[in-house]
């Protein structure tokens, strides 16, 4: 176990990295949250980012998504340094993050949520082209194998799994290079967890890299190509799911 510190899947590691985070440091006052983290992500790779509470997982991913700025270190996307700050800059570089709190508008329907901020409308009458957006939304959901028959339904009335699927589908419609998911399967019924995990596989099959932050370790074994274990602000280990079991992963998370 202790020897497996290099990237697990050799084939993935050889292709040029999609994202390179180098020497990332961040402290809040006296608290060093991240103490020099190096992380590379290959195209289409699914990374399970794990660690105890406070290990720095969310902070690291918020930096990738532009919601936090590192004190030191650099982030390269396809070899280009990320410029600018904020979620918009990150989106321009092809990074999408789906937050734990599900950034959906409950009172709007499925299509309105998928198109929020990118509505199509007639420039003269200002009338929204709802029919076209519904068609495109249905198309997009079908491509991702999300069976939602009525895109005119308000998302507030839908189940947690459906809402999570819509939130992920929304991020995918921005055609990202990297998709960061923060606890996508928390508080979902078993059947819905399966659906979300399948969705993650579908998205990665499209060539989108996925970083998954979760406390449900058993989910990671189903979808992850590589485990990255953070411990007290540094990368403690990188593990190959095929050569690791649950107890091995938990041991690594405890810093042993």
């Amino acid at each position, binding site marked *: 176990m202790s020897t497996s510190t290099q990237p697990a899947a050799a084939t993935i590691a050889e292709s040029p990295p999609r994202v390179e985070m180098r020497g990332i440091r961040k402290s809040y006052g006296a608290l060093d949250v991240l103490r020099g983290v190096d992380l590379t992500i290959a195209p289409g790779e699914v990374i399970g980012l794990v660690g105890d509470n406070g290990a720095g997982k969310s902070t690291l991913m918020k930096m990738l998504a532009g919601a936090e700025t590192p004190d030191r270190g650099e982030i390269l996307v396809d070899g280009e340094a990320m410029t600018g700050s904020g*979620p*918009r800059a990150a*989106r321009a570089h092809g990074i999408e993050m789906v937050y734990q709190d599900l*950034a*959906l*508008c*409950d*009172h*709007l329907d499925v299509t*309105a949520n998928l198109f*929020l*901020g*990118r*509505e199509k*409308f007639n420039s003269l009458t*200002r*009338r*929204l082209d709802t029919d076209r957006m519904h068609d495109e939304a249905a198309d997009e959901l079908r491509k991702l*194998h*999300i*069976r*939602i*028959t*009525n895109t*005119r*339904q*308000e998302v*507030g*009335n*839908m*189940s947690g*799994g*459906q809402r999570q*699927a819509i939130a992920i589908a929304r991020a995918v419609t921005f055609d990202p290079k990297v998709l960061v998911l923060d606890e996508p399967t928390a508080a979902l019924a078993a059947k*819905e967890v*399966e*659906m979300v995990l*399948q*969705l993650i596989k*579908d998205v990665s099959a499209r060539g989108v890299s996925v970083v998954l932050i979760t406390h449900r370790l058993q989910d990671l074994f189903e979808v992850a190509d590589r485990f990255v274990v953070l411990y007290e602000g540094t990368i403690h280990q990188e593990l190959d799911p095929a050569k690791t079991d649950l107890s091995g992963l938990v041991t690594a998370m405890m810093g042993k």
Partner: protein
Amino acid sequence: MSKPYRLSRGARSEFIGRHFGVLSISVVFAALFIFFSARADAFLTAENLVNVARQIAPTVVVAMGMTYVITTGAIDLSVGSIVGLTASALAILAKTGNPVLALVLTLLIGAAIGAINGALTAYGRLQSFIVTLAALTAIRGVALLITQGYSTPIESSFLLPLGNGKLLGLYTPTWIAIAIVVIAWYVFTRTRFGRYVTAVGSNAESLRRSGVDIRRIQMAVLIITGVLAAGAGIITATRLASGSSNSGTMFELEVITAVVLGGTSLMGGRGSILGSAIGALTLGIISNGLVLLRVDVYWVPIVQGIILIVAIFLNSKLFGRLVRSRR
């Protein structure tokens, strides 16, 4: 292939759920309409109904803007004071001899007050309740100050038809109200701006992350309401042929009552333009019907208050149950 995840919900219950507010206020309106028609002889006459439609016009007009404001999760308590100030301002400005300019300036006063409310709320991050409560007090003070409490007569033959003119059997204020309702409905339900108004009240953070400047939306709804309140001030002043600084006292409560009766949620995210219009009409026929029944006029606010409580109770309890049962 993933396992298909099917969703089967009745489109009908979805429709009822989304339009519950409008449906329930329509039932209340119809019931009251039938009751007054049966009990008061003078109620169901063309003359009376045309009069009600004229009296309630200012409420309908401002309720349109208030629906936008409340749907974003904010509130505007200053509309009554804006009516008082703009009614006075129109009369005073009209004395200069240029009624068109007076009209434009009066509307601009409404827009400016709305802009100040909006800037403090959206950019200053103050609660709209506090900002507009302060405006309610201060603007009424300004109106009293510039008029010294006196009414100012309006004699302009250009302005007076705005309150008293008649076209195809209906008074001008009624036509103005109808036009505003149609425009407000279109913008609210069919345009991107209307969708963003709902989104701000539903999940402002989500909209912000989508790259939309939510502060502009929050400011815009208060400007719209300020302009519409000025419109109500103009209608009121021209109808009475006199601008009074006391116009519109307690008007904000009537408007908010109409909007809430129509099913718009004070928590934001859910609003109904049609509901607000019907809510205003309901308040109109209550005061008219009670007067015709020779009920003591002091009963009108009491009955309106009770109707409000009943409507809110039905909305929150029944609507909540409907949504829960569909989960």
